[in-house]
């Protein structure tokens, strides 16, 4: 019965559908970026939009991220609702000024008199040997700086719902999508990249983490690709009688501390798993927040698993070694349970 109702979509189709629906609903919404037109976005995030809306509302740009992201800021200030794409988050360095000094700060500097209803979407993640300049997530790089809502959905359902929320939000949203979860034909085919997506428009909040598996022994906080590894790890651990509760953070800023603390208050143990660099990263913020607000709930040290502060290496065995994965999560949990 249930299966009959399922409407399976890949992550990128879910995203593109969300954008299409909002473009149909609100003519102020438009898309711009590199290869978002005929190509449909290198990672398929704008598939079919060009065919439907044409060159007036789906704009291929030159390789000028500062100009077109800054133009999105300027257009948003005029009441438009741009959805701009930074092809890989790794390229942020050529346009970060527009992102963090303008897109993120203008509302505040103007005392709230200027609003910037815009979305900057960008592809993150490694695992396919694209090396040091095309494999990063950089979650904390954006979450650290005030003025942006920073989200990183991990399922087709959330990709659609959070994209609709992001486009409708009157604040700038940095929307990070994971390449491996787009369901691209030319990438590793993983189940997590496909999921049920209702046809109609719906929203998913931009500020709520989600418990995606309940458990009583330990809490695993993770995000995007890592949540799927965490789920696998949890089922493996279950075979050994360890019930791990898995939280999909979904939003990096604001950080939903409540959901994390409620879980830790139940499990009294915590492992934080991240695909970003370890130091000064998401694992640090989650750990420090719990330590500050739920210290007495903790039975043992908080575990952290992330990229060990090296650039992402190219060669397969090297990249495998530095990326967190199911097996590493399992081992780390077993360590923590020994405490």
């Amino acid at each position, binding site marked *: 019965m249930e299966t009959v109702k399922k409407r399976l979509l890949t992550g990128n189709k879910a995203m593109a559908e969300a954008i299409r629906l909002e473009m149909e609903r609100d003519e102020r919404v438009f898309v711009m970026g590199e290869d978002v037109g005929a190509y449909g976005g290198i990672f398929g995030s704008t598939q079919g939009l060009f065919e439907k809306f044409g060159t007036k509302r789906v704009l291929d740009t030159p390789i000028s991220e500062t100009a077109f992201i800054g133009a999105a800021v300027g*257009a948003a200030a005029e009441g438009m609702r741009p959805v701009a794409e930074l092809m890989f988050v790794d390229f942020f360095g050529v346009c970060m000024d527009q992102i963090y000094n303008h897109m993120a700060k203008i509302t505040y500097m103007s005392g709230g008199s200027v609003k910037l209803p815009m979305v900057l979407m960008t592809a993150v993640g490694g695992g396919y040997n694209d090396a040091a300049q095309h494999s990063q997530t950089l979650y904390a790089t954006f979450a650290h700086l005030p003025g942006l809502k920073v989200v990183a959905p991990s399922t087709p359902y959330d990709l659609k719902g959070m994209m609709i929320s992001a486009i409708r939000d*009157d604040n700038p949203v940095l929307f990070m999508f994971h390449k491996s979860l787009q369901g691209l034909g030319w990438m590793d085919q993983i189940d997590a990249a496909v999921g049920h997506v209702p046809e109609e428009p719906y929203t998913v909040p931009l500020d709520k983490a989600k418990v995606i598996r309940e458990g009583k022994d330990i809490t695993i906080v993770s995000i995007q690709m890592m949540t799927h590894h965490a789920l696998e790890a949890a089922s493996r651990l279950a075979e050994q009688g360890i019930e791990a509760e898995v939280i999909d953070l979904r939003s990096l800023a604001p950080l939903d501390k409540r959901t994390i603390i409620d879980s830790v208050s139940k499990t009294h143990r915590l492992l934080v798993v991240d695909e970003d660099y370890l130091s000064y990263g998401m694992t640090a913020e989650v750990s420090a927040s719990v330590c500050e607000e739920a210290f007495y709930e903790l039975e043992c040290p908080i575990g952290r698993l992330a990229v060990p502060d090296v650039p992402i290496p190219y060669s397969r065995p090297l990249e495998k070694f530095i990326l967190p994965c199911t097996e590493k999560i399992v081992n780390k949990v077993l360590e923590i349970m020994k405490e």
Partner: protein
Amino acid sequence: MSVPVEKLKWMYATMCKIRYYEESMVEAYAEGKKPVFNIGSGSVPGEMHLSNGQEPAAVGICAHLTDEDTVTAPHRPHHHAIAKGVDLNKMTSEIFGKATGLGKGKGGHMHLFDPRVKFSCGGIVAAGIPHAVGAALAAKMNDRDWVAVAFIGEGATNAGAFHESLNLAALWKLPLIVVIEDNSYGISVAKKDSTAVPHNDLRATAYNIEGALVKDNDPIEMYRVSQEAVKRARNGEGPTIIEIETYRFLGHFQGDPELYRDKDEVPRLQEKDPILRLKKVLLEKEISEDELTSMESSVKSEVDEAYRFARESAYPDPEDALRDVFV
């Protein structure tokens, strides 16, 4: 093409308003910074970049703009703001850090936003150009004949944002005008030491667009050149680069020792004060001394009122610092 006398009067009055506004700011900024200058103390703390001498660039083009046209300005924004018609009380109040300011005291002198007249500015060199491109794009998408003007200094022409923005605007034939105020310096660095071309209108070639050079800080020539550029923009004929040779009478910022330029440079420039030159033109056109004097005094009282409003306004509550990150 002769300039309507009403426009000349408006330019004159506005230049006087700007000049008097900045002279008043020199004093306000100095308050509480004596005997020892301390950038963080006094009625108006922080950096202060004034525009005395650069009025022609602002009035020459703003004479052609309406509230629907967009202006983005750099770190030295007062003349542009005043010429664009930004609320003078709220602007001054913002610079004094008061709750009645444009940004409730959060932005300050380099971050003035007045959506009513589509004015904004910022502290990052060249960063305002892309914003103007976006405003021009919005106008085009909505089939309006609105234009967007980005003011920058000559030093900003060597920033990547300048190039990316002009290429994009030219490519999409957007109603963008980039006005380059060549005041000879980027802080202490002379133009010849920062820019590989003698004049930036030459760079229009790199974007297949129109470029114009206004010599010697001439407000009337600026008016004429701008009229053409604005007309082209409104007609969908794409962007223009206008460079104007202008004068920076003061330091880069207040407190600048100015060791990098000759002591007699400014006096020489002041002999060519564009306000006095325009005044002469008006007198030749049989505008009476009296009329000019009354114009001068009316703009002065407007400015005085703005400073009074700012001084009498209250500071924001400290806790207000936590508001307005998001709407």
